């Protein structure tokens, strides 16, 4: 049985140590902090919280080394990153129009008898766009894997072997937040989905997003742009059925019933879980334990406490 605890942000009120002691009282830990990029090794505080021997898996540093030593793979890897950026840019353009289709209907003061149907159709078009985008990325990732077979490259294979051993030896793996795309790319490069399967995992913020099924980037009030939530891509899929929304209080307009309803309807049947300081959800075999209290956003646009 695999156990996963997904936590809210740990910077201000860290409780990752308590959760680790509860889930795995004994044994050493392994940590993934690749989301911190060049600051990956700034782990003193994290180690203090965990209060036991913890190896850092150094995924960011390992990736840099691979890219330095394997230039043909590095070229292909960068080309794939450029491709992903391009796809995201086109998706965003189409997304603006699709979301405007939904919100224009919602802004309409006079709603005739066919309004509901029109709104459902507009929402379906939006969901289809999301699905198409996610599918394009999955297909592209599969092509990349098949063509370049990263795990068969000497440097990557060496790291993969070392990582397997470190993860096998650890009682749990802690995955910190940070830059979600960087974190996900590094985890995917070294085949972490397979290595983490069955392990006890404690992940927060971007770390939790990266191991979930679908990663959605969001901010209702960014300094620039419309703040339209967008799919980044599928995560590693170790935590299923949930859409994780770290820093929800800061990044989402939780008072706007309309916005919340749009978000939850758009991504249903995923359960939209706001993850603020102190929040925690637990999963067994990748599925949320619904009998533990946690907050959820509803399709009616409310924030409710579930699992009480």
């Amino acid at each position, binding site marked *: 049985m695999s156990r996963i605890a997904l936590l809210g*942000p740990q910077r201000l009120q860290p409780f990752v140590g308590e959760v680790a002691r509860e889930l795995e009282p004994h044994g050493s830990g392994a940590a993934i902090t690749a989301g911190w990029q060049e600051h990956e090794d700034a782990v003193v505080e994290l180690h203090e919280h965990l209060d036991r021997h913890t190896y850092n898996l150094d995924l960011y540093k390992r990736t840099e080394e691979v890219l330095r030593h394997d230039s043909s793979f590095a070229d292909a890897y960068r080309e794939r990153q450029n491709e992903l950026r391009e796809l995201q840019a086109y998706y965003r353009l189409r997304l603006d129009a699709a979301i405007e289709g939904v919100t224009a209907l919602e802004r309409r003061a006079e709603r005739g008898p066919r309004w509901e149907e029109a709104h459902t159709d507009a929402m379906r078009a939006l969901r289809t766009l999301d699905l198409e985008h996610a599918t394009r990325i999955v297909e592209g990732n599969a092509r990349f894997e098949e063509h370049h077979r990263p795990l068969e490259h000497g440097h990557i294979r060496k790291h993969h072997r070392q990582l397997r051993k470190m993860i096998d030896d650890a009682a749990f793996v802690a995955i910190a*937040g940070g830059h*979600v795309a960087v974190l996900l790319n590094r985890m995917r490069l070294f085949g972490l989905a397979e290595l983490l399967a069955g392990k006890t995992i404690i992940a927060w*913020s*971007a770390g939790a997003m990266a191991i979930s099924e679908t990663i959605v980037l969001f901010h209702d009030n960014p*300094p*620039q742009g419309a703040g339209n939530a967008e799919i*980044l891509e599928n995560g590693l899929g170790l935590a299923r059925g949930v859409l994780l929304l770290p*820093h929800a209080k800061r990044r989402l307009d939780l008072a706007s019933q309309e916005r919340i309803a749009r978000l939850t309807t758009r991504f249903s049947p995923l359960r939209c879980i706001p993850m603020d300081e102190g929040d925690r959800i637990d999963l067994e075999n990748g599925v949320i334990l619904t009998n533990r209290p946690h907050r959820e956003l509803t399709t009616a646009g409310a924030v409710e406490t579930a699992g009480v």
Partner: protein
Amino acid sequence: MTPVTDTMTARETLQMWIDEGAPDAAAIDAFIEQNSFPIVEPGSVTYVFHGQADGVNLRHFVFGLPSTQPLHRVPHSDLWYLTLDLPDCSRMEYKFELLFHGQGKWIEDPLNPNRALDPFGANSVLQSYGYEHPDWTRHDPEAREGTIEELRFRSRSLHHDYPVSLYKPARFRRTRRYPLLIVMDGGDYLHFSKMKTVLDNLIHRLEVSEMIVAFTHPRDRLNEYAAMPEHDRFLAEELTPRLESRYPLIGTREGRGLMGASFGALASFSTALRYPDMFGGLLLQSGSFAFTDIGEQQRGPAFEPVVEFVNRYRAKPVPMAEKVFVSCGMYESLIYENRSMVPLLQSTDMDVRYVESRDGHNWENWRDRMRDGLSFLFPGPLWMVYE
């Protein structure tokens, strides 16, 4: 005399005294003690002065309103007042002029603690109903602080040393590549617009990219910034390459930007125009884009080269950057010139963002617009980072 009750607003109390005559000095002292001034209400503001004078004038710098307006005396008292209609969310810098025997003496409003510093001293600041002092302009103890390094560059173009204060972001690393922003009137932006605090905060909030910022300090501002080719050459051919050889900078057009206010905006503009392949981003605040459609310009000799330069651009607008952010206060005389410049810039297919505010030609107006401008030119990783 009707007594003052707890439910009366400051304005209502004042109005009662205007209508019925002033109460005794103790009641006025209590009124002053218990209220904040000016009295701000939706859509209007009432300035109050308490003291001896032959007359009191409001002196301000709002273009479009008479710059001198007399306060009225509450009958039989030393309490003076003036109510003005003022749109919500406005900022206005002002002073009082006290008149004694026909002589005027300018002072800051003694009842208003809000002050704005500028190179000429300080002004009182009125914040009308709805104005919010942006929290990202105040020191945030959680934001890691960048550092400032003082440098000097010998300029062959200008034939003198040019001081530069170089901002490096917190957790600066030589292994990274940073964008470069060159800022005109660097000392004023640092001192009066608190730009280091703003950068620390916006970088901490991930709203703008970590960047290196060169705050330049002009020696002969009005000449150097008036589209002077030697100054532009110094920025593009001397300062930029020297910084790029010493610091880990991106070193491409999209990784470089220029920023300035007033004449400093003009200097940024003229540099980018003379070196169109060098700078990808322009942040132009209340630019001195004076021009003439017919006749002579009326702004004085300092504007002669400016008008000539801007007229030339207006005759044939061309792109000079990828992104241009323009801001201007509605209460400044340059609003007409800035509004006129925007469609010309847009006609060149550059990505142009224009923001207006209910404010004047001052450093706090420019401070309050920095989040919009900097995040537009150099967006941070906010969208991708979940700590």
